[in-house]
């Protein structure tokens, strides 16, 4: 458990220490990246609980989703269509679904343990 935690702490401190300014129009990319990352994270947790977790799928999904979302936003900026809204919508819906599934499974586990 110590290595992923170390990575998280290192990433957070790097992010807080970075002092790069990005242009305002590219800030939507960042918000999408955040959503994509969170979505994949919760997807991974769900898969773990459902015993279908595979780290190849998880890792490739993480980076691929971030890249896809950024590409979509990039295309949107250059076409003048707010395509990043599509990404935000898709990821938002999936995020809620994943969290709902996780909650239900945790609840089932808890009640099973209580009954036992």
């Amino acid at each position, binding site marked *: 458990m110590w290595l992923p935690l170390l990575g998280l702490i290192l*990433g*957070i401190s790097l992010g807080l220490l970075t002092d790069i300014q990005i242009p305002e129009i590219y800030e939507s990319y960042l918000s999408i990246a*955040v959503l994509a990352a969170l979505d994949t994270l919760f997807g991974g947790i769900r898969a773990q609980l459902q015993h279908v977790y595979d*780290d190849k799928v998880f890792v490739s999904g993480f980076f691929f989703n971030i890249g896809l979302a950024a590409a979509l936003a990039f295309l949107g900026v250059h076409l003048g269509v707010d395509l990043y809204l599509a990404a935000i919508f898709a990821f938002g819906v999936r995020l809620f679904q994943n969290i709902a599934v996780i909650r239900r499974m945790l609840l089932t586990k808890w009640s099973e343990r209580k009954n036992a």
Partner: protein
Amino acid sequence: MKKRNQLLKIPSRGRILISLVSLVLGFILAYSYSIAVENEAERNSTSESFLEQTKYREELIKQKERNKELTEEINESQQAIRELEQTFANSEESAEALVKEAEKLRLLMGDIPSQGKGISVSLEDGAYNPSQENPNDYIVHESHVFKVVNELKISGAEAISINGQRLRANSFIRCTGPVITIDGKTFPAPFTIEAVGDPEVLLASVHLGGGVLDQLTSDNIVVTVEEKGNITMPALRDEKS
């Protein structure tokens, strides 16, 4: 010893990948957080300065309106005084001369508007002459403007203006580089000097042999003298805006 071994053992590929993922995740979260904080601070500061600006602008507008009201009040009072003097003059013959004197002095101070026949003299820089090294030899200086203004005053001009800026008794004309400052306002060449008064007298005095016109022409200045049928000059008020 066992735990130590566990710590030192080479982590599995999955662990490394997950660590990488959590590193990227942490970086993205922290970075977007810091950017959001910066944006928030920026927005606050801009809205504050904007509010301040609006406040000062409103204050300025209010002051200007007040100024305008007061100026109108002055004009009204001046008019009332003149009317009173007129009635006074009608009733008493001896006071008539004094009233005329007061009128003349007011014109001199630029307190009341002036209107009537007159002339206009425009001074322009001479054409660029490459053979002359010093451009001072063919541009209009404030001394030239002085000469014309003095000549017009001597010839009995009621009111004089330069490029629309009316002169009063205590006006100042200063040379400030390539332009001229009159009562704190700058004017570039060419200068059009307008004077209200008897056009015949004024023209004659300007055209006098060896007089102003000749002196200016010998200084390479392009002078145009015109007779004007009707010149209107507004009353002069201290409006620094």
